[in-house]
């Protein structure tokens, strides 16, 4: 049986109150997985634990068979994390930023330079490659952060609301780059509130509510669960909202 890209077992995390309860989640290698859930459902907490930014209270997280807690450095080599708030330095240019990220992941400098130029070109940032990021729009910053996530050729990319605040053109560029990565065999896990994006891009969808995985499967499987030809929005609302489903 192939090693899954992500295997979460019995994961739990509490802050003032329990946020994630006994979560089990498996994402296969090369899969595009969308994690949906209402605000405060625990999506970001789960992904931050996967990225090693939060320590779980209980449970295990394995990235391609590497335990995140036992060997965090090895796990991080395989992973890229893009948050909804772009992690970019105001006083570095996109090229300098990519040089820095390549240094952190120890990418061969010649390969890093070529990849950086390709990525900036692909994301429409080439004309701004030597401008300080401080003057960039949110969309441009998000694209710089995405380029940073891709420069070290990760096997698993985790994106938390990557399309928030992007205009249609930028969103399209980001979606194209992500789909191309999946075609190349990279695994992508993404949270989004834009259900249409999840519907169109993801191969499997997981719905989180109250820190638990309440449903999971392909769109067809989720439809089968509701027993009618619903849109993802209708399925989502039925799963996460108490009482009768909104239509």
């Amino acid at each position: 049986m192939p090693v899954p890209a992500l295997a979460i077992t019995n994961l739990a995390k509490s802050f003032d109150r329990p946020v994630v309860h006994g979560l089990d989640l498996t994402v296969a290698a090369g899969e595009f997985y969308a994690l949906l859930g209402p605000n405060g459902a625990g999506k970001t907490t789960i992904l931050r634990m996967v990225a090693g930014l939060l320590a779980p209270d209980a449970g295990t997280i394995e990235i391609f068979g590497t335990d995140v807690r036992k060997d965090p450095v090895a796990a991080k080599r395989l992973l890229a994390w893009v948050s909804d708030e772009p992690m970019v330095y105001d006083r570095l240019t996109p090229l300098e930023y990519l040089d820095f990220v390549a240094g952190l992941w120890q990418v061969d400098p010649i390969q890093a330079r070529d990849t950086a130029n390709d990525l900036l070109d692909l994301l429409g940032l080439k004309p701004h490659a030597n401008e300080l990021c401080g003057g960039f729009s949110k969309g441009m910053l998000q694209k710089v952060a995405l380029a940073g996530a891709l420069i070290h050729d990760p096997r698993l990319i985790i994106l938390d609301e990557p399309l928030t605040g992007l205009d249609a053109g930028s969103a399209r560029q980001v979606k194209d780059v992500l789909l191309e990565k999946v075609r190349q065999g990279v695994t992508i896990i993404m949270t989004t509130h834009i259900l249409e994006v999840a519907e169109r891009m993801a191969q499997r969808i997981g719905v989180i509510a109250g820190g638990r995985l309440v449903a999971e499967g392909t769109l067809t499987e989720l439809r089968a669960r509701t027993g009618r030809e619903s849109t993802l929005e209708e399925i989502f609302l039925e799963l996460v909202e108490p009482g009768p489903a909104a239509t």
Partner: protein
Amino acid sequence: MMAAPGSLLWFARHELRLAWRDWLAMMTGGQRVRLFGFLFGGLAVYALLHLIAAVIIAPAAANGIAPDKPTLAMVTGIGLLFFSVMLSQALEAITRVYYTRSDLDLILSSPASTRTLFAVRTGAVALSTALLSALLASPIINMLALFAGPHWLWAYLVLPAFSALAVAIAMALTMGLFRLVGPKRTRLIAQILAAIVGAGFVIGIQAVAILSFDTYSRFALFSSPDLIATLPAADHWLWLPARAVMGDAISAVPVIATFLGALALAMLFFSPSYGRLAVAAASVGQSNRHRAKTGTHFTGRSQAQALRHKEWRLLQRDPWLLSQTLMQMLYLLPPALLLWVNYGEGAGAFIVIVPVLVMAAGQLAGGLAWLALSGEDAYDLVATAPIPAASILRAKVEAVLVVVAAVLAPLLALLALNSWAMAVATGICAILSAASATAIQVWFRIPMRRAMFRRRQVASRAATISEAFASITWAGTGALLSVGSWVAGLTAIIALVVLGIARSLSPHRS
């Protein structure tokens, strides 16, 4: 009675409410009990300052303080020192009036009068400057009133007038900068100017004292008989502010009226352009497409090198830090001057510069360590990189200590030419001071935006206080070690105790 929306009173009430809640949140961190701790601690420090002021002032005031020429010169000199700090603070605050966005976009997009808003905000700057300077000067004023007569209490009326003048000058300077260099560069230059004004006057007179009187005391100039002989007679108008501070009502009334009038005139003159300039300042962020001067070469650094290089590059490009570093460098000028003037004349005169260098090392390291450790804008990126957390920490600490070493090394080398022993003692204590400040920043690190540098002290008062105490005690150790005193051991132990307390209070004890 409710003030009419958009009126001066209405805006003033809005600003006051925000300022009060901001202050309360800053002081309590959401816990009321902290406020009591802060108040009791503050009162204890305040009482101690009164005690120190009493010890200094009581003997000097024993035979009364007459408003003769030497006294007026001394009061004027001290007043100018105070005023330079006021002006520096006002300049920075006025720049914020134009550049801080927060609710400015909302207000500028409303039909409310920008002239009214400008009047309220600049008035608030004048008030806060006056309150802060009154608080700082109050131990001296109170003890002067106690030992030399209640007429010194007039100083409390004169101080707000001085702060009004400082704000008026700050407004004129800011407007001048807008005209001269445009909104894109005004903030940076104003910040640097504020740093220079704040430290420049103090350092300038200290430099004159070193060059002319061979002493490190900035008061030497004010009490110099040569200088006093060249000054006008005691009844000259030049001494009006000093006389006003000393409680001469006839001098105080015109001084207060003139200075408050200057503020009113500045408000009247500069308020019509406020809306336009605030909008121009807002567009700076949007058009801030600076090109990097150097190319990017993808040289293939190690992870630690990449982290250190990034830290240095960001430090180099940070205008706020530039002004802060400039301030630290300015404070190092007098010791450098003293070293130069006394070069080859033995080590005796240098004892005063040892604590300055040690303190500077601690303060510089503390500020830089905050930027590198807490002010990491891409915290998640660095935390998800395949590097052990300890290695990240080590690389960042190295980046800080290299900068501190680069700043101090030339001065230590100069000192070594005069006295090896003193240079070694200074070097050791400077390393300990810088290491202590860095360790405190490691223990108290909290991820914050780099732009929050100004408010870093607020994040943890324990860190700020312990950093200051550690620097002071290592500075004392350095001075005592330089003269071969065994008491150095005692102050070193106190410094270690301070560090121990800081560590026990800190959230990160690794």
